[in-house]
């Protein structure tokens, strides 16, 4: 099993207190993602984005969450055997958990490198698989936590503070 942590500098304290407190759910939504279901890909991200507009987060945060949610949803659609997304909006942050149904990553550190991709031809034909998904998520999030193992579900969670 390998694990990856990234916390944007300056957010260590807020991140620590978030993971210690285990806040009660504020506004939670669940989405199911089908394997290579490119027709519906992006719908969960759109719903998350819509919720954020409803609570009036600023444009920059909206943009960042939109990119994270979309990239991660496409990752599950394109590379995994489907998966599920749970978004949890709190008054001061959004916490999104992406869990796929395998096949797991061999090397997370490698997957974090821009341009690295294991995508097959179909995925590339669809215009995905450029190897920018995870780097893009990292660029836009405040906290990124990944747990993965070859042959198992991959667990990816992000936190963006408002």
């Amino acid at each position: 099993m390998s694990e990856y942590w990234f916390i944007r500098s300056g957010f260590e304290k807020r991140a620590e207190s978030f993971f210690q407190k285990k806040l009660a759910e504020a506004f939670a939504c669940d989405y199911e993602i089908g394997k290579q279901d490119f027709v519906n890909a992006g719908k969960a991200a759109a719903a998350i984005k819509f919720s954020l507009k409803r609570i009036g987060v600023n444009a920059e945060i909206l943009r960042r969450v939109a990119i994270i949610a979309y990239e991660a949803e496409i990752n599950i659609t394109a590379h995994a055997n489907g998966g599920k997304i749970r978004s949890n909006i709190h008054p001061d942050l959004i916490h999104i958990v992406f869990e796929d149904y395998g096949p797991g990553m061999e090397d997370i550190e490698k997957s974090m490198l821009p341009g690295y991709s294991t995508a097959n031809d179909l995925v590339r034909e669809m215009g995905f698989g450029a190897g920018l998904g995870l780097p893009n998520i990292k660029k836009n999030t405040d906290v990124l936590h990944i747990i993965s193992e070859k042959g198992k579900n991959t667990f990816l969670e992000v936190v963006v503070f408002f």
Partner: protein
Amino acid sequence: MKKEKKYFHAIKIVEENCTGCTRCVRVCPTEALRVRNEVVILDDSRCIDCGRCVAACPYDAIQTFADNLSIIEQKKYKVAIVSTAYAGQFPENIGYKTALKALLHIGFDEVAEESMVTEIMGKMIREYLRKNPQTRPVLSSNCPSVVRLIQVRFPSLLSHIYLNEAPMSVLAMYLRKKIAVEKKISENDIGIYLIVPCVAQVTAVHQPEGTYRHLQDGAIPIRDVYQKVMSKMEEIAKDKNDIKVYPKGLSWALSGMEAEEINDGTIKTLAVSGIDNVIKILAKLENGQLEKYDFIVLNSCENGCVGGVLNIEHPSIAASRIRRILRTEKSDKVDDKFFMEMYRKGNFKVRSLEPRPIMQLADDIKVALEKMSKIREITGQLPGLDCSACGSPTCKALAEDIVAGKADIKDCVVLLKREKVKK
């Protein structure tokens, strides 16, 4: 109850004609319309002047408001600026020059075409793209409806909007200065009127976004001018005066061709028309999916400005006629020196636009989250048919209206009927 009117809109509701049918409610892209007590009401802060409701209403209950041709009498020297869509309205036996000259016979002293500056606009846009390499893609700003859509539904994309005046405004600024000098008259005595294809252009003249002042003195619908022009055909046949014309720039009336014109081989452009398509593309852009494009031309109406509700001819026919004119008619040369000088001096710059968020449920995030939970709960109780019989566009919109205290769950006729059947 007296409503506060913050925004001007070029549409008016004629209550006595309204049957409460909800056709308009269902087509509104910003959910600005509701039917309450069998009459339609418009939320001023949501409306983006796309004109879809006008086209959807079979009872003439949503009418357009625009200036009457008689207003041109208020000024000494009267100039008409015609939208590129104008050329597509006339049958082929009426030449392009004739259609323009006709305006001089219905009261105008001078006629200018939007198409005269479109080529120059392309040049300015390319220069803007070079000077702002950090902003990609840049979004066209000449469709006022699209600009308002971004303000209300996609405020995070405001920084992508091309921040210079639209062609007809650029032309109005130039003409006012030029005519004042040439004719030795005060700028105030010059009346500049746009001959427009859509509701949004009328609103833009009366309540400009981002600009510091009103640049034009009125906006007159193409369809109002059309009838007057057609009645003068015999008179015009005898008029042997020649005028300069610039049909080359008419391509801007057609969304796809406008994008082609701007692309000089170095720019990646995308053309999108029809408000539903525009919404989908803006959502993709929000996800960071379209950064490979340099410039996106966005038009609220299908096919571009030829699709505006104030035109006479069907958009496809108008588009075909414009393509024919583009192939056959010769353009006079435009001297772009003055325009580019004005552009480089910053005369055409506009302020960056303020968001007009309509989506936010409350100022306090906690309150907004509570409302979201309530909306979700009520949406679950509703039948999900989106029939609009309650007067709200969808079940979800009704749930929002209930939470906002503007409707009641008893407004749902489907639930009411189901209860009756149970009893």
